[in-house]
Structures are given as structure tokens and as C-alpha cells.
């Protein structure tokens, strides 16, 4: 644990784990999370090497991160870990959006990918000393028996049935086993609440972008949000301070779904609380609107998580739940008027290779 205040000062030695410059492996480089984390790490002089893995190319501009294309379940991972001698793995490649892929593909990415990742990290000669895993508060499920706030230790009220929740449970099971078997490795498991902000697209932001926002008749649950900026900050905070254990990451406060819709300037349309899937599936098939089955419970009972443990470790949120929504509203207003304002970055392998490795490029 880096507790010395001097660690922040560039002139004094860094805290214990950062004495040598760190070598970091980021999974899911092509996702919003992985890309942003890698970008931020590039600016950190204590980070010597950043290796990013993904099945798809990065979507953000990176200067010194080395991108390696892998298959979804990371079969070559142990070779990469051995060859690069990384000391930290930031595992952001976990699918938490059930609408974007089949259950099969999600299983490959989440369960098999994590299994291979930890197999590589716990190999006999492994140099890995820190692991940060991104998970989701979806793991707590959603049931009428739930408390208003879940702490990191509150068990779920009902066994999980949704494939996404079961796959997250399997992932967290691997994380726990790994942490138990490798006491010398510092493991941080961050459970993120509903992420919202100006860039990220999630099932909830898609619902809020519809002309009318679906809700459940007679229910008005309270939702909690975390701003994407705080998400990246929390991952970096866990990286800098070697946070141990499980942490909820969510903004302060809960607000009713009807109010969330109203803040976005939308009306709500009530779905029947019974037989909802029957009604929503034609819309999904036609591609008009997708209210995933996993979110039906959430639209009835909502979910709140207690964020005090992360605060206790010194992390300060910049956005409350309602402030996080504000960021989303601003960007969706802008998008409505001018479309995607910033040109999308396109990864070009040859160009990247040239700038990084050609002797013609001047580097110091």
C-alpha cells in the first residue's frame, strides 16, 4: 500500500510497488474502457511498457501502447505475459452489455478469457504482482428482497438466472480463487454501477436515447449512475494505490427512473409489468428498440450500491448520479444537432509501426 505522501512528489522515490517502472498489460484495448485507461497510463512516467490486447483494433489514439490482436479467449496469453514480463494486468475486457452479443460469445469473452488470463498470471515464473479486474454491479442481481444499498459483502437475494449475471459470477469466482492461491499478488475487483457519460453506449443510454423512454407500469425504481470519467479515474486510482479487495464504484445518490427520463427531456411509455418479454421481443427483432430481459427487473426494483469503501480508501468522486446524467444529456444534445462532432479515430497498423519503430522517426 502506497501510503507515503511523498510518493506524489516527482523528486522523491516512488512508493514500494512503483520503485521500478511498471509494465502493464491492458485487456480490451479496443473497448472504451481499455482504450481510455491505456491513454491515461501513457502519460504516467512510472509506466514503462503498456501492452494492449483485444480482438478488435483500438478506437482511440495511442502513442506508445503496443497493440496485440488476440482471439476472444486469449489462448496465447501466457506467451505474452512471459515474453513481456508485465507486473500489472488491468482486465477490462469483460462484456457487460448482453444486447451486443450472443450468450455463447459472452461466455467465451468473460469466462474463458478470464480463465486463460489467470492461468497465464499464475504460471510458475509469472511476474504479475497486481491485477485489476473490471466487473459490474449486475452481479448483485435485482429482486424485491434487495436492500436499497448493496455493500461489497451483501449476498444476492435470489440466485442468478440471466446469462450475463452467471458469467460475471463465474468471472468473480476465478478472481477470488486467483487471489486466494496467489497471496503475493494484489487483486482489486471493481464493480461498476450503470456507467453513463458523453461517449459510452450502454443498454440504458440506448433506452434514454429513444423518442419515448420505456418504463414499467406502476413502478418507478431508483437508479444509480457513475460517470465514465470517474470510471477511468477509479481504475487508475486502483492502479496507483494497489487497492486490495472488492470495491463498488458508483456515484452518490439514487434517482427515480421517471426523473432520469425527465432530465433527458423525454416522456416515458409504460410497459406491462407482466409478460414484458412478449411485448418487447418484436421490437427487438425489428431493431426499433431493445429492452433487454436483464433490465426488466431493474426497471421494477432498481439497484443501489454503497460506494463508501472506495471513498474510505481516499477516492473522491467528481460526479454524483445526477451530475453523471447531466454529462450524458449535454453530449446527446450536441449529437442531436451536429452528429458525431469528433472524427472517429481509425487504427492503421502500418502507420503505427512506422511511427514507433522506424529509424527515420526522431525520438528521444
Amino acid at each position, binding site marked *: 500500500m502506497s501510503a507515503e*505522501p511523498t510518493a506524489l512528489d*516527482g523528486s522523491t522515490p516512488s512508493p514500494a510497488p512503483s520503485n521500478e517502472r511498471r509494465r502493464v498489460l491492458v485487456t480490451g484495448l479496443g473497448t472504451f474502457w481499455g482504450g481510455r485507461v491505456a491513454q*491515461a497510463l501513457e502519460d*504516467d512516467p512510472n509506466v514503462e511498457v503498456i501492452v494492449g490486447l483485444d480482438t478488435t483494433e483500438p478506437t482511440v489514439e495511442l502513442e506508445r501502447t503496443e497493440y496485440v490482436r488476440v482471439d476472444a479467449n486469449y489462448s496465447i496469453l501466457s506467451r505474452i505475459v512471459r515474453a513481456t514480463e508485465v507486473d500489472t494486468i488491468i482486465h477490462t475486457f469483460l462484456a457487460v452489455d448482453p444486447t451486443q452479443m450472443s450468450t455463447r460469445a459472452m461466455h467465451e469473452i468473460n469466462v474463458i478469457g478470464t480463465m486463460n488470463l489467470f492461468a497465464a498470471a499464475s504460471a510458475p515464473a509469472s511476474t504479475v504482482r497486481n491485477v485489476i479486474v473490471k466487473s459490474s454491479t449486475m452481479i448483485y442481481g435485482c429482486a424485491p*428482497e434487495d*436492500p*436499497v*444499498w448493496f455493500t461489497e459483502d451483501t449476498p444476492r437475494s435470489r440466485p442468478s438466472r440471466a446469462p450475463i449475471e452467471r458469467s460475471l459470477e463465474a468471472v468473480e469466482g476465478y478472481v477470488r480463487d486467483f487471489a486466494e492461491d496467489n497471496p503475493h499478488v494484489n487483486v482489486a475487483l471493481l464493480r461498476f454501477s450503470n456507467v453513463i457519460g458523453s461517449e459510452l453506449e450502454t443498454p440504458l443510454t440506448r433506452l434514454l436515447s429513444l423518442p419515448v423512454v420505456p418504463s414499467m407500469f406502476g413502478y418507478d425504481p431508483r437508479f444509480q449512475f457513475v460517470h465514465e470519467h470517474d470510471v477511468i479515474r477509479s481504475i487508475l486510482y486502483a492502479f496507483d494505490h494497489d487497492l486490495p479487495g472488492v470495491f463498488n464504484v458508483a456515484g452518490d445518490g439514487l434517482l427515480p427512473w421517471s426523473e432520469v427520463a*425527465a432530465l433527458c427531456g423525454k416522456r416515458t411509455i409504460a410497459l406491462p409489468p407482466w409478460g414484458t418479454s412478449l411485448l418487447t421481443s418484436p421490437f427487438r427483432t425489428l431493431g426499433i428498440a431493445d429492452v433487454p430481459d436483464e433490465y426488466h427487473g431493474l426497471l421494477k426494483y432498481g439497484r443501489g450500491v454503497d460506494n463508501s469503501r472506495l471513498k474510505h480508501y*481516499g477516492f473522491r468522486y467528481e460526479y454524483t448520479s445526477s451530475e453523471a446524467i447531466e454529462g450524458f444529456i449535454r453530449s446527446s444534445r450536441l449529437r442531436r444537432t451536429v452528429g458525431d462532432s469528433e472524427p472517429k479515430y481509425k487504427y492503421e497498423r502500418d502507420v503505427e509501426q512506422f511511427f514507433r519503430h522506424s529509424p527515420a522517426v526522431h525520438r528521444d
Partner: protein
Amino acid sequence: MAPPPKRSVSRARPTPERRRARQAVEAARNGSTARTATIDPPTPDEQAFGGSVGTDLVPLGRGSDPDVLDDRRLSDVNEWGRSEHMREIARRIYDPVYRHWFRAEWEGLEHIPTDGGALLVANHAGAIPSDAPVIMHGIETELERPVYGLADNLFRTLPMIGTIWNRLGGLPAHPDNAYRLLREQHQLVLVFPEGSKGPAKTYDERYQLRRFGRGGFVEIAMRAGVPVIPIAVVGAEESMPTLFRIPSVAKALGLPYVPLTANMLVGGPLGVVSYFPAKFKLKVLEPVHFDVPPGQERYSRSRVMDESEAIRDHIQSALYEMLQVRRSVWFG
């Protein structure tokens, strides 16, 4: 703080994203300065995987008063789902019922603190219990402080009713909810330890208290370090007395009980939702303080059960006393 050494990379093109990411790093670092100055985080040993940290709750910064909302909000629904605005409307509608129908009369209101957390515990009766709204309305109008009522999760599953119940200060009875309200936010919490066994009993069993659950309310009060304030309520039993229970229908509907009430016989369908004008008398008893350290994971089971039983006996004997001096069900 010294700026991080500048790297010069040949094609550094600052874009908005890059700036944001950089700010993120700096903000995260700055956050840590604040931390080292203020709190000492638990050591990794204290907080490893599977370690017990559930009770290691710290007071919340801005979240500690549930009614402090930020100005971006459009409604006043707080984090528990309670809305003071809705509560105000409900008070206006309910006040004539409270004053002229039930003619509620309090004794010993001074035992309820005007600030600080306390767990209110009362007997529970009436097919659709009329005691919860009377107690909540009474305390909110007399003491001008909110009361959160803990009730069965069943409420939450009912469309419309569940939402209204929640806006009026109702919450699912989960120990974590009670703990946070009492310990961190110093609120008044009302709970009926009999649960649904109280309202389910028939008229011939009136004012016979049922088992007080497993004493969970005592444990919560001990953990939260707040007193238990027992309240004896007379009148609710007669406002909607149950003549029979119909277990087969209850089972089919998945409800804890389905009553046939005297109100239904008298008023037909209207009787399902209307009360007899029984006179309400409420007596607040001496607060019970527990001299145990708060915040423990577990408390002695025998101690918890003894305290729970003592509180139950106390309410039971207060009820007998009140019934001894009651001349009429309707006029008190």
C-alpha cells in the same frame, strides 16, 4: 506537486480525449494527496478477499442527510424513495382521517427524541394494518421529523401501490436499510416485529401479541447504537377485524394471508378498503437503551432474545392496562 517530466514524442497531437485522460491521471493523483492528509485506510490485511468488512461502514459525506439533494434534480424523491412533497399531500388528505375518524390520542410522545436515530417498535393489527399510517402521520405532524416505515417486500412487488408506499416513506424491511438509516443518517425508523403474523390474526385473538420474529430489531438497534422505543397501539384491531382467514385463496395468490373482515360484511366491496371508526390510543413507552458497543458483527443470541422478549412483554402489559381503562371501542 512537481509536474511529471515531459516526454517528447514526435507525434504528440493533443486532442480533447488526450487532455481529458491526462486530467484524469492528475485528478486521481490529487485525490491521493487528500487521502493521505485525512484518513488512514485500513491495511490490506484488514481488507483482503473474503475478509469481513461489512460492518466497517464510515459516515457518508454528503449522503448522510438523505434530504440534501443537488440542484440538478427535478423531484424531491430522496435516495430511499421518500418524497417530502408526496408526503405533504398525503398528510393533507390523511389528516381528517387521523383527527376525525380515528381521533388518535398520544401519550408519552416526549419519549421520542427530536433528533438522533431511534427504532420505533409497535404492535401490528387490522387486516390492512391501520396502525402504520397513524403512527407515521402522528409523529410527522407532532414532532415534524420524517419516519421511515419498514414493511414486507411484498409491497414493493405491487405496481402503483408499491411506488406510492415507497414515496410515502415505506421501505423493504432489510437489516441493511435499517442500519444505514439509524446509524448513518440518524432517522426514525418504524418496524413491526410481529411482521404479517400480527395483522393475520383473527378478531378473537385481538391484542395478543405474536412472536417478535427472531429479535432482529434488537440486534439492529444494538449494532446501530440507538434506543428501541416501544409503542402500544389500541384501536387498530377494531378498525378492520378479521373474522376468518381463507388459506386456500392466500396460497393461490401467493399472499401471506387473505382475510374475510367484518368491514366486508358491513360495507361489501367498499369494506375491503374502509375502516371502522375505532378510537385510537397510542402510548409511547420508556426508551430501551442497550449498553453494548455498537458496530459489532454479532451480539449474544440469548441477550438479543431476552431483550426482545422483555420489549414484547412491556408492550403486552401496556396494552392490557390501556384496555382495562377503555370504556368503549368507539369512544375510548
